[in-house]
């Protein structure tokens, strides 16, 4: 069997920030009642992190949980574990109204890193990216120019961004354009 490929095969660009496609990542959509103990346990069980608050995420390495909507979670696991994680959650939620499905191949993930990362995203996304308003642990579903995306801050100066696989090329080109040298604004305090 052939190895699966991501949308852009790990393409990267170095401008005022580094933009790189992260290759295949395991992503699972879990829809269900966030107040349900079974839903919480199923999610935290495979992700190994705490259940996130609204508009937040908790990630450690390739694992994590992100709040997508009042009844939807994004479960992050290594790509190779996704099917197993789906099966495990489905088994745990057998008696609970919920939907668990592997969406790893429907998405692309980028990493945007560097001191100007906030600024690059703010050129494309209508989100308050100032350090006081958005930091590690925050998660936002929004748009980048004309397509839906979601992103979160991994650590200082680095963001992870997901989009649909079909527009990975468009999003990569957007990020490259926003990260092109010469467009620096210096709006956000450096290193924050």
């Amino acid at each position: 069997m052939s190895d699966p490929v991501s949308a852009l095969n790990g393409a990267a660009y170095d401008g005022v920030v580094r933009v790189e496609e992260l290759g295949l990542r395991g992503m699972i959509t879990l829809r269900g009642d966030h107040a349900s103990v079974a839903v919480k346990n199923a999610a935290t069980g495979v992700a190994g992190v705490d259940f996130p608050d609204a508009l937040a995420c908790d990630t450690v390495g390739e694992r994590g949980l992100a709040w997508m909507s009042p009844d939807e979670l994004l479960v992050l696991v290594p790509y190779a574990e996704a099917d197993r994680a789906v099966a495990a959650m489905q088994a745990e939620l057998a008696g609970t109204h919920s939907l668990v499905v592997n969406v790893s191949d429907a998405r692309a993930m980028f990493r945007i890193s560097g001191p100007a990362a906030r600024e690059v995203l703010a050129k494309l996304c209508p989100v308050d990216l100032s350090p006081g308003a958005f930091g590690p642990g925050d998660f936002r579903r929004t748009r980048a120019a004309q397509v839906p995306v979601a992103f979160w801050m991994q650590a200082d100066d680095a963001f992870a961004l997901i989009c649909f696989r079909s527009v990975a090329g468009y999003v990569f080109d957007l990020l490259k354009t926003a990260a092109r040298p010469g467009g620096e604004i210096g709006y956000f305090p450096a290193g924050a």
Partner: protein
Amino acid sequence: MSTRLQTGGRLLDRGRRESFTFNGRRLTGYAGDTLASALLANDRMLVGRSFKYHRPRGLVASGAEEPNALVGLGRGGRFEPNQRATTTELFGGLQAESQNHWPSLEFDIGAVNGRLARVLPAGFYYKTFIHPRPLWKHVYEPFIRKSAGLGKPPQDRDADRYEHFHVFADVLIIGGGIAGLQAALAAGRAGARVLVIEQTAHWGGRAPVDGVRIGGAPAEEWIARAVARLEAMENVTLHRRTMGAGVYDHGYALGYERVTDHAPETDAPRHRLWKIRARQIISATGAIERPLSFAGNDVPGVMLASAIRDYVVNWAVSPGDRTVVVTNNDDAYRTAICLKQAGLEVPVIVDARPRAEGALPEAARALGIRVETGRGIAMVMGGKRVTGVALCAQAGEGAVLEQLPCDAVAMSGGWSPVVHLWSHCGGKLLWDDAQAMFRPDVARAPTSHDGAPFVSAAGAANGALRAAETLADGDAAGRAAVRALGLRAPGGAADRAEAPDEAPLLPVWMMPQGAGEALRMKMWLDYQNDVKVSDLQLAAREGYESVEHAKRYTTLGMATDQGKLSNINGLGVLSDAMGEDVPRLGTTTFRPPYTPISMGAIAGEARGGLFQPLRRGPIQRWHEDNGATFEPVGQWRRPYCYPRGDETRAEAVTREVRNTRQAIGLLDASTLGKILVKGPDAGRFLDLLYTNMMSSLTPGRCRYGLMCSENGFLMDDGVVARIDDQTFLCHTTTGGADRIHAHMEEWLQTEWWDMQVHTANLTEQFAQIAVVGPNARALLETLGGMDVSREALPFMGWADGRIGGIPARVFRISFSGELSYEVAVPAGHGLAFWEACVAAGQAFGLMPYGTEALHVMRAEKGFIMIGDETDGTVIPQDLGLGWAVSKKKADFIGKRAQERAHMTDPERWKLVGLETIDGSVLPDGAYAVAEGRNANGQRNVQGHVTSAYFSPTLGRGIALGLVRNGPDRMGEVISFATIDGGLIGARIVDPVFYDKDGEKQDV
């Protein structure tokens, strides 16, 4: 003449000379100049021609309000018309051209229009050119278009890049004069996140020019200290060269940053559009001086008094050696004093007021300047340049009392607060009688979602024109904004600004007051659009009582400057002519942007390859590498066909159809929508969504379903597979994927929120590959891994497994009428699976086929296509799909609508097949003609073609169409009209042209 002074110029860097060209002539200026100040320094007062009469026009202003000095800047990909010289920062190598002249600026043939002014009054075009009608299009309009107009549109592709920037602030302050800076200090000290934007390259506005002192020191020192203090605050951002373009609902504002206009060779975006969300907005946009309406007030050399002192103080440019000042207020005396102190002559200050005894007039007298009160200007002498003025009594009819030679006139009719940004989102104005101006009515501010005001005006923009009030008003606005945010306003008092007291002005809408027709025809209100006092008076006489109507009739305020100088004077004239008070007339509407912004800034990054998103499927690269030609389907580009060698597209489609029917074809169907629907109520939900029954589907089976809108019209179709008791996978059309998912969520979230159903859009999770044709089973068996026999996987069944080692879900469904498997694999394996099929398929004669072959084959089978057979007015019953509309279900979306009288009308056009008598292909969309003509004299119609193709299988043209009573008219020949007036005969036949019993797909 205008010239550079030996000393001074607070904004100049005399160490850096910059050369530039104007109309091809090489000139020099200094770094810090604007194009306008550099032109004046080179004695270039004449900068353009007016729109209608081609009158010579000179600089009037020094800032954004300039109506005349519009130039074309740059060359080729960097050419841009209609740029204001006053807001263009000079840089080395700048190339500027004047506009609206032919053959040259100095000698312009169109100026003959000026002699015809008497016969070109307001509304002239409307009155004169309306009859005879055909002449407008062929004679009048081409002539007028040639003689009127401003800059030329650029011809080349824009060489620059542009971008957007989204920012959020507690307090957005628009305008970096002393009011804006003080507001920022107050808000910044309270801890609010503050963004201050200033349209020019300099902080402080006009306080330094006006000699204001703050806290005992010159304004300039205070400004430098304030800027330094603000820059030291982490919560405050200052940004220059960024104009507040518009204020919109809920604290949204646009800032237009001209990043590299002053340094075009920089590798940076040229313009940046700031999309700002602010909780409070302070409009500290200052005020604009008004011209006075006297005869000849458009002769080059007549300028705003404030502009003249701007040129002297900021850029050390003297607009003239002998400048007559004409005013109705004290402020203009500053210009006289400033000129005198620069060593220039001021022969007289003409003051329309009966008395002038304030501090400034006294100071002017003390300098030995002659002051004439109760006087006005009867007439300015000169053509392309002022040569003198004739004085008269302001109260009279213009009898000349005295003539004085001069080469410049500084005029001041008072000031108008820049209320644009206050007004954009609904802020109302009140008329301030004492200062003869509209200013923001604080009681009627723009309000946000919570009903609370979110815009305030500060400083001169709020009518606080005197420096002491300006600074205090800015401080108050900053404090009020932070209090509105729930923050504590900072303690301590603001610095005090000092400036001489000023006596009240006298409103003067016409000079002299009793001027006759001859003078009124020479009094310009709107310089750019050539609107005069006489035009507005004519409009009033002709009954244009509404200020909005008068504006459109006369074109007052309709030029690129949108009446920044002319509107209030025009209102004054109109109110006098109608005997109404100015406030009763009101103003025209202030709309964004404040001054024109570039199309590039609006587009941002959305150009070239980023103009719109292109969606790429996992197999896209293979299609490109293998010669596919594409067609747009939504934002996808799907392979239309794969021409080989020098095949035409039609030949390729024919080959692909034949090969699929005879051997095996491969179709990339990945773009099909795939929506997972799960929950205890999933069956009930889908029964309501689809016209047919879905809850009765058994796991492992597929069913074709139709979805209708509430109005009963067919909106999407596709195959539903039941995965397990609670789970269904709904296929949609390519274009319907997002729309149908949203449709499902809308019903679940707003109407059927009590249902236990979840959905997930899996469209992009899978590559879906249709393996189609008599050899399809053999190919999958060769790849191996799943039993795809008729027994194990019957028609309309599905199964999970692995094929060729790749996890796959295989659907036995057919859109071609052939033996067909649609294989869904994870998108990351899509290309590998496709290539495996292509490689193993060679032994079976496999060829990929595109969307056109797909269309042809489905039409041969009589399968409908959403968007071809449907157009938003078609119901399933029209298409012979009544079998898929449940009669048993109590309800489904569209059911009630389909029972309405018009929907059950037997006369509705219904789907049939059509075979041309001559075998040709009917034009898509052609109408079937009927006997007689309708009320408009057009042929009656009885149907139309919805799809038409050449059928390689039948060797002739086939079509599907909707025909009145069609299914009852089998065998009848009807006529279809062609665009060239001809008729094509076609026989009504069964819509299923191929394998009516469906034997081939079920083997």
